[in-house]
Protein backbone atom coordinates (compact mmCIF):
# COMPACT_ATOMS: atom_id res chain seq x y z
CA UNK A 1 0.00 0.00 0.00
CA UNK A 2 1.36 3.46 -0.91
CA UNK A 3 1.70 6.00 1.94
CA UNK A 4 -1.27 7.94 0.53
CA UNK A 5 -3.41 4.79 0.38
CA UNK A 6 -2.32 3.74 3.87
CA UNK A 7 -3.15 7.18 5.27
CA UNK A 8 -6.55 7.26 3.50
CA UNK A 9 -7.35 3.84 4.96
CA UNK A 10 -6.29 4.88 8.48
CA UNK A 11 -8.29 8.12 8.20
CA UNK A 12 -11.35 6.04 7.31
CA UNK A 13 -10.76 3.75 10.30
CA UNK A 14 -10.29 6.71 12.64
CA UNK A 15 -13.35 8.44 11.18
CA UNK A 16 -15.44 5.30 11.65
CA UNK A 17 -14.32 5.06 15.29
CA UNK A 18 -15.03 8.75 15.84
CA UNK A 19 -18.36 8.82 13.98
CA UNK A 20 -20.83 8.15 16.80
CA UNK A 21 -18.97 10.17 19.47
CA UNK A 22 -18.79 13.12 17.04
CA UNK A 23 -22.47 12.74 16.12
CA UNK A 24 -23.39 12.73 19.81
CA UNK A 25 -21.17 15.67 20.75
CA UNK A 26 -21.33 17.90 17.67
CA UNK A 27 -24.29 16.79 15.53
CA UNK A 28 -24.59 16.95 11.74
CA UNK A 29 -22.51 20.05 10.86
CA UNK A 30 -19.63 20.75 8.48
CA UNK A 31 -17.25 21.02 11.46
CA UNK A 32 -18.07 17.39 12.29
CA UNK A 33 -16.24 16.18 9.15
CA UNK A 34 -12.68 17.12 10.20
CA UNK A 35 -13.55 16.14 13.76
CA UNK A 36 -14.35 12.53 12.80
CA UNK A 37 -10.70 11.40 12.46
CA UNK A 38 -9.64 13.71 15.28
CA UNK A 39 -12.16 12.07 17.63
CA UNK A 40 -10.89 8.71 16.37
CA UNK A 41 -7.33 9.80 17.16
CA UNK A 42 -8.35 10.52 20.76
CA UNK A 43 -9.69 6.95 21.02
CA UNK A 44 -6.47 5.71 19.43
CA UNK A 45 -4.44 7.63 22.05
CA UNK A 46 -6.49 5.98 24.80
CA UNK A 47 -5.74 2.64 23.11
CA UNK A 48 -2.03 3.52 23.09
CA UNK A 49 -2.09 4.44 26.78
CA UNK A 50 -3.92 1.17 27.53
CA UNK A 51 -1.32 -0.83 25.56
CA UNK A 52 1.44 0.71 27.68
CA UNK A 53 -0.43 0.07 30.93
CA UNK A 54 -2.30 -3.22 30.41
CA UNK A 55 -1.84 -6.52 28.56
CA UNK A 56 -3.08 -6.50 24.97
CA UNK A 57 -2.24 -5.04 21.58
CA UNK A 58 -2.89 -1.56 20.24
CA UNK A 59 -5.42 -2.88 17.74
CA UNK A 60 -7.34 -4.78 20.44
CA UNK A 61 -7.49 -1.72 22.70
CA UNK A 62 -8.48 0.51 19.80
CA UNK A 63 -11.41 -1.77 18.97
CA UNK A 64 -12.45 -1.94 22.65
CA UNK A 65 -12.27 1.85 23.18
CA UNK A 66 -14.11 2.47 19.88
CA UNK A 67 -16.88 0.03 20.83
CA UNK A 68 -17.22 1.55 24.31
CA UNK A 69 -17.41 5.07 22.87
CA UNK A 70 -19.91 3.95 20.22
CA UNK A 71 -22.20 2.30 22.78
CA UNK A 72 -22.22 5.37 25.06
CA UNK A 73 -22.72 7.73 22.10
CA UNK A 74 -25.52 5.63 20.62
CA UNK A 75 -27.25 5.72 24.01
CA UNK A 76 -26.99 9.52 24.10
CA UNK A 77 -28.28 9.85 20.52
CA UNK A 78 -31.25 7.52 21.15
CA UNK A 79 -32.29 9.27 24.35
CA UNK A 80 -31.94 12.66 22.63
CA UNK A 81 -34.05 11.61 19.62
CA UNK A 82 -36.82 10.35 21.97
CA UNK A 83 -37.07 13.73 23.64
CA UNK A 84 -37.30 15.60 20.31
CA UNK A 85 -40.32 16.30 18.11
CA UNK A 86 -40.82 13.42 15.69
CA UNK A 87 -39.64 13.98 12.09
CA UNK A 88 -42.14 13.80 9.22
CA UNK A 89 -43.46 10.29 8.68
CA UNK A 90 -41.90 8.43 5.77
CA UNK A 91 -45.36 8.15 4.20
CA UNK A 92 -45.84 11.95 4.09
CA UNK A 93 -43.91 12.46 0.84
CA UNK A 94 -44.67 16.18 0.53
CA UNK A 95 -43.38 17.00 4.01
CA UNK A 96 -40.38 14.77 3.49
CA UNK A 97 -39.49 16.46 0.18
CA UNK A 98 -39.85 19.89 1.82
CA UNK A 99 -37.61 18.84 4.71
CA UNK A 100 -34.98 17.51 2.31
CA UNK A 101 -35.08 20.66 0.16
CA UNK A 102 -34.80 22.87 3.23
CA UNK A 103 -31.81 21.02 4.58
CA UNK A 104 -30.20 20.98 1.10
CA UNK A 105 -30.67 24.76 0.77
CA UNK A 106 -29.25 25.32 4.25
CA UNK A 107 -26.22 23.12 3.53
CA UNK A 108 -25.44 24.53 0.06
CA UNK A 109 -23.91 27.81 1.28
CA UNK A 110 -21.66 26.26 3.92
CA UNK A 111 -20.53 23.52 1.55
CA UNK A 112 -19.62 26.14 -1.07
CA UNK A 113 -17.72 28.08 1.60
CA UNK A 114 -15.92 24.90 2.65
CA UNK A 115 -14.32 24.37 -0.76
CA UNK A 116 -11.94 27.39 -0.75
CA UNK A 117 -11.01 26.69 2.88
CA UNK A 118 -10.21 23.09 1.92
CA UNK A 119 -8.10 24.29 -1.02
CA UNK A 120 -6.25 26.71 1.27
CA UNK A 121 -5.48 23.87 3.70
CA UNK A 122 -4.04 21.84 0.81
CA UNK A 123 -1.90 24.80 -0.29
CA UNK A 124 -0.77 25.61 3.26
CA UNK A 125 0.48 22.05 3.76
CA UNK A 126 2.05 21.62 0.33
CA UNK A 127 5.43 20.83 1.94
CA UNK A 128 3.93 17.35 2.26
CA UNK A 129 5.54 16.62 -1.12
CA UNK A 130 8.91 16.69 0.66
CA UNK A 131 9.52 13.31 2.37
CA UNK A 132 10.86 15.09 5.42
CA UNK A 133 11.09 13.22 8.73
CA UNK A 134 11.86 15.64 11.56
CA UNK A 135 14.55 15.14 14.22
CA UNK A 136 12.05 14.68 17.07
CA UNK A 137 9.81 12.62 14.79
CA UNK A 138 12.52 9.97 14.57
CA UNK A 139 13.85 10.37 18.11
CA UNK A 140 10.46 10.44 19.85
CA UNK A 141 7.28 9.75 17.93
CA UNK A 142 8.38 7.00 15.51
CA UNK A 143 10.32 5.35 18.33
CA UNK A 144 7.27 5.25 20.63
CA UNK A 145 5.13 4.05 17.71
CA UNK A 146 7.51 1.12 17.16
CA UNK A 147 7.30 0.25 20.86
CA UNK A 148 3.51 0.11 20.57
CA UNK A 149 3.63 -2.25 17.57
CA UNK A 150 5.55 -4.79 19.71
CA UNK A 151 2.69 -5.07 22.25
CA UNK A 152 2.31 -4.39 25.96
CA UNK A 153 5.37 -6.14 27.44
CA UNK A 154 7.91 -4.53 25.09
CA UNK A 155 6.18 -1.13 25.16
CA UNK A 156 6.05 -1.00 28.97
CA UNK A 157 9.67 -2.16 29.29
CA UNK A 158 10.80 0.54 26.84
CA UNK A 159 8.71 3.17 28.63
CA UNK A 160 10.41 2.32 31.95
CA UNK A 161 13.90 1.87 30.50
CA UNK A 162 16.17 4.70 31.74
CA UNK A 163 18.20 4.16 28.57
CA UNK A 164 15.35 5.63 26.51
CA UNK A 165 14.90 8.74 28.66
CA UNK A 166 16.30 10.97 25.90
CA UNK A 167 13.26 10.04 23.79
CA UNK A 168 10.88 11.59 26.36
CA UNK A 169 8.90 8.41 27.15
CA UNK A 170 6.44 10.36 29.29
CA UNK A 171 5.17 12.42 26.32
CA UNK A 172 1.44 11.83 25.65
CA UNK A 173 0.64 8.94 23.30
CA UNK A 174 -1.67 10.36 20.58
CA UNK A 175 0.82 10.94 17.77
CA UNK A 176 2.75 7.70 18.27
CA UNK A 177 -0.47 5.68 18.67
CA UNK A 178 -1.89 7.02 15.41
CA UNK A 179 1.42 6.30 13.65
CA UNK A 180 1.39 2.73 14.98
CA UNK A 181 -2.26 2.30 14.01
CA UNK A 182 -1.50 3.45 10.44
CA UNK A 183 1.14 0.71 10.20
CA UNK A 184 -1.16 -1.93 11.66
CA UNK A 185 -4.16 -0.98 9.50
CA UNK A 186 -2.23 -0.70 6.23
CA UNK A 187 0.40 -3.38 6.77
CA UNK A 188 3.03 -0.77 5.86
CA UNK A 189 5.80 -0.05 8.33
CA UNK A 190 7.13 2.94 6.40
CA UNK A 191 8.18 6.08 8.29
CA UNK A 192 6.64 8.11 5.47
CA UNK A 193 3.18 6.59 6.14
CA UNK A 194 3.38 7.60 9.80
CA UNK A 195 4.55 11.13 9.00
CA UNK A 196 1.86 11.73 6.36
CA UNK A 197 -0.71 10.41 8.85
CA UNK A 198 0.22 13.14 11.33
CA UNK A 199 0.11 15.71 8.52
CA UNK A 200 -3.41 14.50 7.66
CA UNK A 201 -4.51 15.11 11.27
CA UNK A 202 -2.90 18.56 11.08
CA UNK A 203 -4.92 19.19 7.92
CA UNK A 204 -8.12 18.23 9.74
CA UNK A 205 -7.31 20.54 12.65
CA UNK A 206 -6.31 23.38 10.30
CA UNK A 207 -9.57 23.02 8.37
CA UNK A 208 -11.47 23.04 11.67
CA UNK A 209 -9.67 26.27 12.62
CA UNK A 210 -10.50 27.87 9.26
CA UNK A 211 -14.06 26.66 9.48
CA UNK A 212 -14.41 28.32 12.87
CA UNK A 213 -14.10 31.69 11.13
CA UNK A 214 -16.80 30.69 8.62
CA UNK A 215 -18.92 29.62 11.60
CA UNK A 216 -18.48 33.13 13.04
CA UNK A 217 -19.85 34.48 9.74
CA UNK A 218 -22.78 32.06 9.76
CA UNK A 219 -23.74 33.04 13.30
CA UNK A 220 -23.40 36.69 12.30
CA UNK A 221 -25.77 36.18 9.37
CA UNK A 222 -28.36 34.62 11.67
CA UNK A 223 -28.01 37.11 14.54
CA UNK A 224 -28.14 40.21 12.35
CA UNK A 225 -31.17 38.92 10.44
CA UNK A 226 -29.46 39.71 7.13
CA UNK A 227 -31.29 39.29 3.83
CA UNK A 228 -30.45 36.29 1.63
CA UNK A 229 -27.98 38.49 -0.28
CA UNK A 230 -26.51 39.83 2.95
CA UNK A 231 -26.14 36.31 4.30
CA UNK A 232 -24.30 35.22 1.16
CA UNK A 233 -22.02 38.27 1.46
CA UNK A 234 -21.22 37.54 5.11
CA UNK A 235 -20.52 33.90 4.30
CA UNK A 236 -18.24 34.90 1.40
CA UNK A 237 -16.38 37.34 3.67
CA UNK A 238 -16.06 34.64 6.33
CA UNK A 239 -14.65 32.23 3.73
CA UNK A 240 -12.18 34.89 2.51
CA UNK A 241 -10.91 35.61 6.03
CA UNK A 242 -10.74 31.85 6.73
CA UNK A 243 -8.69 31.25 3.57
CA UNK A 244 -6.26 34.04 4.51
CA UNK A 245 -5.78 32.88 8.08
CA UNK A 246 -5.27 29.26 6.94
CA UNK A 247 -2.58 30.42 4.47
CA UNK A 248 -0.90 32.43 7.23
CA UNK A 249 -1.04 29.36 9.48
CA UNK A 250 0.78 27.40 6.77
CA UNK A 251 3.64 29.90 7.03
CA UNK A 252 3.66 29.70 10.85
CA UNK A 253 3.81 25.89 10.75
CA UNK A 254 6.45 25.70 8.00
CA UNK A 255 7.96 22.22 7.68
CA UNK A 256 6.64 21.28 11.13
CA UNK A 257 3.17 20.90 9.60
CA UNK A 258 4.30 17.95 7.48
CA UNK A 259 7.43 16.42 9.06
CA UNK A 260 5.73 14.46 11.84
CA UNK A 261 6.22 16.92 14.70
CA UNK A 262 3.45 17.05 17.31
CA UNK A 263 3.52 20.80 18.01
CA UNK A 264 1.22 21.86 15.12
CA UNK A 265 -1.50 19.38 16.10
CA UNK A 266 -1.90 20.45 19.72
CA UNK A 267 -1.54 24.13 18.77
CA UNK A 268 -4.20 23.97 16.04
CA UNK A 269 -6.51 21.93 18.27
CA UNK A 270 -6.14 24.50 21.05
CA UNK A 271 -6.93 27.35 18.62
CA UNK A 272 -10.12 25.53 17.60
CA UNK A 273 -10.98 25.21 21.30
CA UNK A 274 -10.59 28.99 21.75
CA UNK A 275 -12.80 29.63 18.71
CA UNK A 276 -15.63 27.31 19.72
CA UNK A 277 -15.36 27.67 23.48
CA UNK A 278 -14.43 31.32 24.01
CA UNK A 279 -15.40 33.20 20.85
CA UNK A 280 -18.56 31.52 19.53
CA UNK A 281 -21.55 31.02 21.80
CA UNK A 282 -20.96 28.16 24.24
CA UNK A 283 -23.86 26.03 23.02
CA UNK A 284 -23.90 22.30 23.79
CA UNK A 285 -22.71 21.47 20.27
CA UNK A 286 -19.92 24.05 20.28
CA UNK A 287 -18.79 22.67 23.62
CA UNK A 288 -18.87 19.23 21.98
CA UNK A 289 -16.31 20.54 19.47
CA UNK A 290 -14.25 21.87 22.39
CA UNK A 291 -14.35 18.49 24.15
CA UNK A 292 -12.96 16.67 21.09
CA UNK A 293 -10.19 19.15 20.29
CA UNK A 294 -9.12 19.46 23.92
CA UNK A 295 -8.81 15.68 23.95
CA UNK A 296 -6.52 16.00 20.93
CA UNK A 297 -4.45 18.85 22.42
CA UNK A 298 -4.19 17.20 25.83
CA UNK A 299 -3.05 13.81 24.51
CA UNK A 300 -0.58 15.15 21.95
CA UNK A 301 2.12 16.97 23.93
CA UNK A 302 2.95 18.05 27.47
CA UNK A 303 2.46 21.74 26.59
CA UNK A 304 -0.86 20.75 25.02
CA UNK A 305 -1.95 19.06 28.24
CA UNK A 306 -1.12 22.18 30.26
CA UNK A 307 -2.93 24.49 27.85
CA UNK A 308 -5.90 22.12 27.55
CA UNK A 309 -6.34 22.33 31.35
CA UNK A 310 -6.20 26.14 31.15
CA UNK A 311 -8.79 26.03 28.34
CA UNK A 312 -11.11 23.76 30.34
CA UNK A 313 -10.96 26.24 33.24
CA UNK A 314 -11.51 29.24 30.95
CA UNK A 315 -14.39 27.68 28.99
CA UNK A 316 -16.26 26.54 32.07
CA UNK A 317 -15.65 29.93 33.75
CA UNK A 318 -17.21 31.61 30.73
CA UNK A 319 -20.22 29.29 30.97
CA UNK A 320 -20.53 30.00 34.72
CA UNK A 321 -20.35 33.76 34.21
CA UNK A 322 -22.99 33.87 31.48
CA UNK A 323 -26.35 34.80 32.90
CA UNK A 324 -28.36 33.14 30.13
CA UNK A 325 -26.51 29.80 30.54
CA UNK A 326 -26.89 29.04 26.82
CA UNK A 327 -27.72 25.30 26.93
CA UNK A 328 -24.04 24.31 26.93
CA UNK A 329 -23.17 22.99 30.33
CA UNK A 330 -25.72 22.01 32.93
CA UNK A 331 -23.06 21.76 35.58
CA UNK A 332 -19.90 23.69 34.58
CA UNK A 333 -18.14 22.94 37.87
CA UNK A 334 -18.59 19.17 37.47
CA UNK A 335 -17.54 19.36 33.80
CA UNK A 336 -14.40 21.26 34.86
CA UNK A 337 -13.44 18.68 37.45
CA UNK A 338 -14.06 15.78 35.04
CA UNK A 339 -12.21 17.53 32.20
CA UNK A 340 -9.15 18.32 34.32
CA UNK A 341 -9.08 14.80 35.78
CA UNK A 342 -9.28 13.28 32.29
CA UNK A 343 -6.42 15.48 31.07
CA UNK A 344 -4.30 14.52 34.09
CA UNK A 345 -4.90 10.82 33.34
CA UNK A 346 -1.77 10.28 31.24
CA UNK A 347 0.69 12.24 33.47
CA UNK A 348 -0.62 10.32 36.50
CA UNK A 349 -0.37 7.02 34.58
CA UNK A 350 3.32 7.69 33.79
CA UNK A 351 4.02 8.08 37.53
CA UNK A 352 2.14 4.87 38.36
CA UNK A 353 3.90 2.98 35.54
CA UNK A 354 7.31 4.10 36.81
CA UNK A 355 8.34 6.08 33.74
CA UNK A 356 11.65 7.92 34.37
CA UNK A 357 11.28 11.68 34.95
CA UNK A 358 11.37 13.71 31.75
CA UNK A 359 14.68 15.45 31.07
CA UNK A 360 12.73 18.67 30.30
CA UNK A 361 11.40 18.96 33.85
CA UNK A 362 14.12 17.45 36.02
CA UNK A 363 17.78 18.27 36.60
CA UNK A 364 19.91 21.27 37.56
CA UNK A 365 19.11 24.74 36.21
CA UNK A 366 21.96 26.65 34.50
CA UNK A 367 22.03 30.45 34.83
CA UNK A 368 19.98 32.92 36.85
CA UNK A 369 16.22 33.26 36.38
CA UNK A 370 16.70 36.79 35.04
CA UNK A 371 19.24 35.63 32.46
CA UNK A 372 16.96 32.78 31.40
CA UNK A 373 13.93 35.09 31.14
CA UNK A 374 15.91 37.53 28.99
CA UNK A 375 17.22 34.73 26.74
CA UNK A 376 13.67 33.35 26.39
CA UNK A 377 12.28 36.77 25.44
CA UNK A 378 15.08 37.38 22.91
CA UNK A 379 14.59 33.98 21.28
CA UNK A 380 10.77 34.01 21.23
CA UNK A 381 10.17 37.63 20.18
CA UNK A 382 11.13 37.17 16.49
CA UNK A 383 8.45 34.47 16.19
CA UNK A 384 5.75 36.53 17.89
CA UNK A 385 5.52 39.84 15.98
CA UNK A 386 1.89 38.92 15.35
CA UNK A 387 1.13 39.59 19.02
CA UNK A 388 1.83 43.31 18.37
CA UNK A 389 -0.44 43.26 15.28
CA UNK A 390 -3.16 41.47 17.24
CA UNK A 391 -2.81 43.92 20.14
CA UNK A 392 -3.29 46.91 17.81
CA UNK A 393 -6.29 45.23 16.13
CA UNK A 394 -7.78 44.32 19.52
CA UNK A 395 -7.32 47.81 21.00
CA UNK A 396 -8.83 49.49 17.92
CA UNK A 397 -11.58 46.88 17.92
CA UNK A 398 -12.26 47.40 21.61
CA UNK A 399 -12.80 51.11 21.05
CA UNK A 400 -14.59 51.03 17.70
CA UNK A 401 -16.11 47.57 17.23
CA UNK A 402 -17.09 46.40 20.70
CA UNK A 403 -20.82 46.79 20.12
CA UNK A 404 -20.54 45.22 16.70
CA UNK A 405 -18.75 42.21 18.20
CA UNK A 406 -21.42 41.82 20.88
CA UNK A 407 -24.15 42.09 18.23
CA UNK A 408 -22.54 39.22 16.28
CA UNK A 409 -22.74 37.12 19.44
CA UNK A 410 -18.98 36.78 19.80
CA UNK A 411 -17.34 36.36 23.18
CA UNK A 412 -15.26 39.13 24.74
CA UNK A 413 -11.80 39.23 23.15
CA UNK A 414 -10.27 39.27 26.64
CA UNK A 415 -10.95 35.52 26.88
CA UNK A 416 -8.67 34.85 23.91
CA UNK A 417 -6.08 37.29 25.30
CA UNK A 418 -6.26 35.53 28.66
CA UNK A 419 -5.40 32.26 26.92
CA UNK A 420 -2.63 33.93 24.95
CA UNK A 421 -1.17 35.35 28.17
CA UNK A 422 -1.48 32.01 29.94
CA UNK A 423 0.30 30.30 27.03
CA UNK A 424 3.18 32.78 27.25
CA UNK A 425 3.42 32.17 31.00
CA UNK A 426 3.22 28.36 30.70
CA UNK A 427 5.54 27.98 27.70
CA UNK A 428 7.93 30.77 28.69
CA UNK A 429 7.86 29.63 32.32
CA UNK A 430 9.10 26.19 31.27
CA UNK A 431 12.24 27.76 29.79
CA UNK A 432 12.79 30.13 32.72
CA UNK A 433 12.18 27.71 35.58
CA UNK A 434 13.15 24.50 33.76
CA UNK A 435 16.48 22.68 33.96
CA UNK A 436 19.65 22.68 31.85
CA UNK A 437 21.21 25.12 29.40
CA UNK A 438 18.43 27.46 28.29
CA UNK A 439 20.27 28.72 25.18
CA UNK A 440 20.58 25.21 23.73
CA UNK A 441 16.99 24.41 24.69
CA UNK A 442 15.68 27.57 23.05
CA UNK A 443 17.79 27.09 19.92
CA UNK A 444 16.32 23.64 19.35
CA UNK A 445 12.68 24.32 20.23
CA UNK A 446 11.48 27.92 20.37
CA UNK A 447 10.37 27.97 16.71
CA UNK A 448 7.91 25.18 17.61
CA UNK A 449 6.84 26.10 21.11
CA UNK A 450 5.73 29.55 19.91
CA UNK A 451 3.40 28.10 17.26
CA UNK A 452 0.27 28.18 19.44
CA UNK A 453 0.73 31.81 20.52
CA UNK A 454 1.46 32.89 16.92
CA UNK A 455 -1.57 31.04 15.55
CA UNK A 456 -3.87 32.38 18.24
CA UNK A 457 -2.63 35.90 17.51
CA UNK A 458 -3.55 35.52 13.84
CA UNK A 459 -6.98 34.11 14.66
CA UNK A 460 -7.62 37.11 16.94
CA UNK A 461 -6.73 39.41 14.00
CA UNK A 462 -8.96 37.34 11.68
CA UNK A 463 -12.03 37.69 13.91
CA UNK A 464 -11.53 41.45 14.26
CA UNK A 465 -11.10 41.68 10.47
CA UNK A 466 -14.45 39.95 10.01
CA UNK A 467 -16.16 42.14 12.63
CA UNK A 468 -14.93 45.34 10.98
CA UNK A 469 -15.49 44.54 7.31
CA UNK A 470 -18.82 42.80 7.88
CA UNK A 471 -20.27 46.05 9.24
CA UNK A 472 -20.18 47.38 5.67
CA UNK A 473 -22.12 44.40 4.33
CA UNK A 474 -25.28 44.97 6.33
Amino acid sequence: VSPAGAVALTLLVLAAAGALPTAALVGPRVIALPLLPLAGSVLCALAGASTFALPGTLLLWFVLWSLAAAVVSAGVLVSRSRSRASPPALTDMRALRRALLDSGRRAAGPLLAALPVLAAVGWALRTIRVPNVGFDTRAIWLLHAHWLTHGHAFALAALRNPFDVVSHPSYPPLVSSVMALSWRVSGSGADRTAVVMVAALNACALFAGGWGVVEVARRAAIRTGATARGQAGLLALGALVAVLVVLVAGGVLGTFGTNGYADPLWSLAAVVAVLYGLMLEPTARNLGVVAIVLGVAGLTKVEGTAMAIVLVLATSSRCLLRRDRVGGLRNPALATVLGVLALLGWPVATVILGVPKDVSISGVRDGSLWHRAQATFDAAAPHLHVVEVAAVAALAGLVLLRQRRARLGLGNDLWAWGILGAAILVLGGAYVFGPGDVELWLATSVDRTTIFVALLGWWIVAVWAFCGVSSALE
Partner: protein
Amino acid sequence: VAGLVVGLLALGALGTAAVSATRSETPLASAHAIREADHSNAYYACLTAQAHALVRPDDVVFLGEANLDRWVTVIKAMGGWAHMAMRQSAASVAILLEHPAHGPSCAGETLVSIRRETHGGVRFRSGRQSSP
Protein backbone atom coordinates in the same frame (compact mmCIF):
# COMPACT_ATOMS: atom_id res chain seq x y z
CA VAL B 1 -16.67 53.90 8.96
CA ALA B 2 -13.90 53.78 11.57
CA GLY B 3 -14.84 50.19 12.37
CA LEU B 4 -14.69 49.32 8.68
CA VAL B 5 -11.21 50.87 8.48
CA VAL B 6 -10.07 48.73 11.44
CA GLY B 7 -11.50 45.67 9.70
CA LEU B 8 -9.85 46.51 6.39
CA LEU B 9 -6.48 47.12 8.07
CA ALA B 10 -6.74 43.77 9.87
CA LEU B 11 -7.72 42.12 6.59
CA GLY B 12 -4.75 43.82 4.91
CA ALA B 13 -2.42 42.50 7.63
CA LEU B 14 -3.79 39.00 7.07
CA GLY B 15 -3.42 39.32 3.29
CA THR B 16 0.17 40.57 3.56
CA ALA B 17 1.05 37.78 5.98
CA ALA B 18 -0.61 35.21 3.70
CA VAL B 19 1.52 36.36 0.73
CA SER B 20 4.65 36.32 2.89
CA ALA B 21 3.77 32.84 4.21
CA THR B 22 3.27 31.54 0.68
CA ARG B 23 6.68 32.93 -0.34
CA SER B 24 8.45 31.55 2.73
CA GLU B 25 6.99 28.09 2.15
CA THR B 26 8.13 27.83 -1.48
CA PRO B 27 11.79 26.88 -0.76
CA LEU B 28 10.60 24.41 1.87
CA ALA B 29 8.78 22.47 -0.87
CA SER B 30 11.56 22.77 -3.49
CA ALA B 31 13.42 20.02 -5.35
CA HIS B 32 16.47 20.80 -3.18
CA ALA B 33 14.44 20.15 -0.02
CA ILE B 34 13.24 16.85 -1.50
CA ARG B 35 16.84 15.78 -2.28
CA GLU B 36 17.98 16.62 1.25
CA ALA B 37 15.06 14.69 2.79
CA ASP B 38 15.74 11.68 0.53
CA HIS B 39 19.40 11.74 1.57
CA SER B 40 18.52 11.83 5.28
CA ASN B 41 15.93 9.04 4.88
CA ALA B 42 18.45 6.87 2.99
CA TYR B 43 21.00 7.44 5.79
CA TYR B 44 18.62 6.27 8.53
CA ALA B 45 17.27 3.39 6.41
CA CYS B 46 20.87 2.26 5.90
CA LEU B 47 21.74 2.50 9.63
CA THR B 48 18.55 0.60 10.52
CA ALA B 49 19.39 -2.14 8.01
CA GLN B 50 22.92 -2.40 9.45
CA ALA B 51 21.52 -2.61 12.98
CA HIS B 52 19.09 -5.38 11.98
CA ALA B 53 21.98 -7.31 10.44
CA LEU B 54 24.20 -6.92 13.53
CA VAL B 55 21.67 -7.42 16.35
CA ARG B 56 19.79 -10.67 16.92
CA PRO B 57 16.16 -10.58 18.12
CA ASP B 58 17.11 -11.93 21.59
CA ASP B 59 20.09 -9.62 22.04
CA VAL B 60 20.33 -7.01 24.78
CA VAL B 61 22.23 -4.04 23.38
CA PHE B 62 24.66 -1.70 25.12
CA LEU B 63 25.34 1.51 23.26
CA GLY B 64 28.96 2.46 23.68
CA GLU B 65 28.63 6.07 22.55
CA ALA B 66 29.73 8.89 24.82
CA ASN B 67 28.60 11.65 22.42
CA LEU B 68 24.91 12.56 22.88
CA ASP B 69 24.32 13.39 19.18
CA ARG B 70 25.70 10.03 18.05
CA TRP B 71 23.84 8.27 20.88
CA VAL B 72 20.56 9.76 19.66
CA THR B 73 21.41 8.86 16.04
CA VAL B 74 21.82 5.20 16.95
CA ILE B 75 18.70 5.22 19.11
CA LYS B 76 16.73 6.54 16.14
CA ALA B 77 17.95 3.57 14.08
CA MET B 78 17.32 0.79 16.60
CA GLY B 79 15.64 2.11 19.78
CA GLY B 80 12.19 1.18 18.48
CA TRP B 81 12.78 -2.55 18.27
CA ALA B 82 15.97 -3.58 20.09
CA HIS B 83 16.21 -4.35 23.83
CA MET B 84 18.59 -1.71 25.15
CA ALA B 85 20.53 -1.80 28.43
CA MET B 86 22.15 0.96 30.45
CA ARG B 87 24.97 -1.27 31.77
CA GLN B 88 27.46 -3.12 29.63
CA SER B 89 27.38 -6.10 32.02
CA ALA B 90 23.66 -6.65 31.26
CA ALA B 91 24.18 -6.63 27.48
CA SER B 92 25.01 -9.42 25.04
CA VAL B 93 26.30 -7.05 22.35
CA ALA B 94 27.73 -3.53 22.24
CA ILE B 95 27.13 -1.16 19.34
CA LEU B 96 29.30 1.77 18.21
CA LEU B 97 28.92 4.29 15.41
CA GLU B 98 32.24 4.58 13.56
CA HIS B 99 33.73 6.51 10.63
CA PRO B 100 35.34 3.79 8.50
CA ALA B 101 38.29 4.83 6.32
CA HIS B 102 37.02 2.61 3.51
CA GLY B 103 34.37 -0.02 2.82
CA PRO B 104 30.57 0.27 2.86
CA SER B 105 29.07 3.04 4.97
CA CYS B 106 25.90 5.04 5.56
CA ALA B 107 26.97 8.51 4.35
CA GLY B 108 30.44 7.92 5.87
CA GLU B 109 29.32 6.18 9.09
CA THR B 110 28.99 2.51 9.98
CA LEU B 111 27.63 0.57 12.93
CA VAL B 112 30.07 -1.81 14.57
CA SER B 113 29.03 -4.63 16.91
CA ILE B 114 31.25 -6.11 19.61
CA ARG B 115 30.03 -9.46 20.83
CA ARG B 116 31.41 -11.64 23.60
CA GLU B 117 31.69 -15.20 22.28
CA THR B 118 30.92 -18.27 24.41
CA HIS B 119 34.59 -19.38 24.39
CA GLY B 120 35.62 -16.04 25.90
CA GLY B 121 36.81 -14.29 22.74
CA VAL B 122 35.43 -11.07 21.31
CA ARG B 123 34.01 -10.69 17.80
CA PHE B 124 33.84 -7.43 15.87
CA ARG B 125 31.49 -6.96 12.93
CA SER B 126 30.78 -3.93 10.76
CA GLY B 127 27.58 -3.13 8.93
CA ARG B 128 27.78 -3.93 5.21
CA GLN B 129 24.87 -1.87 3.90
CA SER B 130 25.66 1.49 2.33
CA SER B 131 23.91 4.68 1.31
CA PRO B 132 25.08 7.73 -0.66
